[in-house]
């Protein structure tokens, strides 16, 4: 029985007679050529069209590196189109950022836009108290390529919104769409965090005064995020001001990061920039915020404040 079956099936298993073998090989070659040919048509099409991100053109500097890294590492939460709707997004307590519709939050520029360095830092370090993991394994080029890619997602969101908003006689042509969307996502006034001036003396009384007049209406008089205002972000989602007494702060709680948050504000949220304050005044606010957080400060700062409180108690 088994032999019979074996014998019967033999020709099939072994393939066709010698002539047919060569035919089959040629068919394989033909198939390969057709397959490769269709690939050449399909691959550029998927780069230019919808499979990666509508309207995306490969980067001049990094080609498809940013897109590939994004797909592999970011898309599961932030979504293929960057709208914060990846398959894993639903499992997260802190929703992933919608790059397409929202501005980047953690910035160091005076015009409300994240610099390359800001994006690289967020990508490399992740976000404490959010669910964004750090990616220290990325090399410089990879981190920059990713930063460029998410910025491009942000820009393409602007292209769509601008085209929607202005129609008819007011419609923007392609050049204007490119130009304006580029302006919206490119930081023109980045700054490096300056050191306090030579005459700067950290003084919690000054810090408290500035905090009371500037921060307390949202963050509360003692920084617990319990100010009287009901706040919404630019998408209309209710949000609460950060409880500054409960570290960690999502954007990073080093003095430098606090300086950037205070000077530049947090785009997309009610947190405003402080162009009306000098850098030293911002440093006073940084020091007071660190005091609220229970973080150590510069030498000589605390004594005067404690003394002040004692003096107030005596009076």
């Amino acid at each position, binding site marked *: 029985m088994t032999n019979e079956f074996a014998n019967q099936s033999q020709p099939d298993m072994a393939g066709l007679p010698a002539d047919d073998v060569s035919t089959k090989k040629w068919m394989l*070659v033909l198939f*390969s*050529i057709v397959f*490769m*040919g269709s*690939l*050449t048509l399909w*691959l*550029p099409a998927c*780069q230019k069209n919808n499979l990666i991100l509508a309207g995306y*053109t*490969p*980067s*001049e500097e990094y*080609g*498809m590196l940013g897109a590939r890294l994004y797909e592999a590492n970011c898309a599961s939460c932030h979504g293929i189109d960057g709208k914060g709707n990846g398959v894993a997004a639903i499992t997260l307590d802190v929703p992933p950022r919608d790059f397409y519709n929202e*501005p980047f939050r953690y910035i160091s520029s005076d*015009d*409300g*836009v994240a610099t390359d360095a800001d994006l690289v830092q967020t990508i490399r370090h992740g976000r404490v108290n959010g669910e964004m993991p750090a990616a220290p394994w990325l090399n410089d080029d990879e981190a920059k390529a990713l930063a460029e890619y998410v910025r491009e997602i942000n820009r393409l969101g602007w292209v769509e*919104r*601008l085209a929607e*908003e*202005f129609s008819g*006689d007011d419609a923007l042509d392609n*050049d*204007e769409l*490119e*130009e*304006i969307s*580029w*302006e*919206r996502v490119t930081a023109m006034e980045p700054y490096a965090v300056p050191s306090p001036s030579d005459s700067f003396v950290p003084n919690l009384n000054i810090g408290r005064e*500035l905090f009371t*007049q*500037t921060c307390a*209406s*949202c963050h509360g008089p003692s920084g617990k995020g319990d100010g*009287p*205002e*009901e*706040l919404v972000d*630019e998408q209309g989602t209710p949000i609460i001001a950060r409880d500054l007494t409960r570290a960690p702060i999502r954007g990073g709680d080093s003095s430098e990061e606090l300086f950037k948050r205070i000077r530049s*504000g947090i*785009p997309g949220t*009610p*947190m*405003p*920039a*402080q*162009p*009306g*304050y000098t850098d030293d005044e911002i440093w006073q606010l940084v020091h007071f915020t660190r005091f609220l957080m229970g973080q150590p400060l510069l030498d000589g700062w605390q004594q005067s404040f404690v003394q002040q409180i004692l003096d107030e108690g005596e009076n």
Partner: protein
Amino acid sequence: MRSIKYSAVGLLFVSLMLGVSAGSDTLTKQPKKSRYTVIDVENGGSITGLVKYTGKVEASTPVEVTTTEDICHAEPIFKENLVVNSDAGVRWAVASIKNIKKGKPFPDSSAPEDQVKMNQIGCVFTPHVVVAQVGKNVLLLNDDGVLHNVHSWSKKNRSINIAMPGSVKEMKTKFRRAERIRVTCDVHPWMIGWFFTTENPYASVTAEDGSFSLTDIPPGTYTIELWHETLGTQEQTVTIDSGKATEIEFIFNDIPAQDD
């Protein structure tokens, strides 16, 4: 041998693919120049106009003041999104000449009192609508001794969100492009103001009686656009003769349905 040939064919295709994908666009980094040219306008014509709303106006009640009551509650605050007088005249609409290419210069604003400014008084953006030239500084003032923030909802212009603590009485900002920009204050949610930014000086905010005027217009045929934050826009074509005043009227019968 054959397999080498196949890989050669494959390589050819791969290189072809790379060639196709390498072509990418570069971004335009310089903004376009202004499309408006200043000329001497001699014996130009003018337009005087009136904006009316004939529909129902709901009796307005003061907004509920929930914070910094001592400053914001000094006088009752009424919303200004539809201010209509007893003769149906609409305040805070803006009449402008659409796409005018040549005309008079902007008024000289070098003296401090002539500078374009928006103040915050008693927790109200004052005036409610400000016409501002693109690329020129606009003064933001805070006469109140409390924190305000000027938060813009611009599309063509970068968004601003500037804190103005009670101690900061004056700030400057500028807008690069022509747009109708809503500004709000996150601390006082009822506060809403508008910047009408423009490349040409032919833009006029209607007064309490709904009237406006546009002057020193070179003779020609123009489209006049009337915009109001609640009533929407209307357009009229007007021919301007030198030295003559043309009267026009914009009449709104109802409030357009909101998209969102």
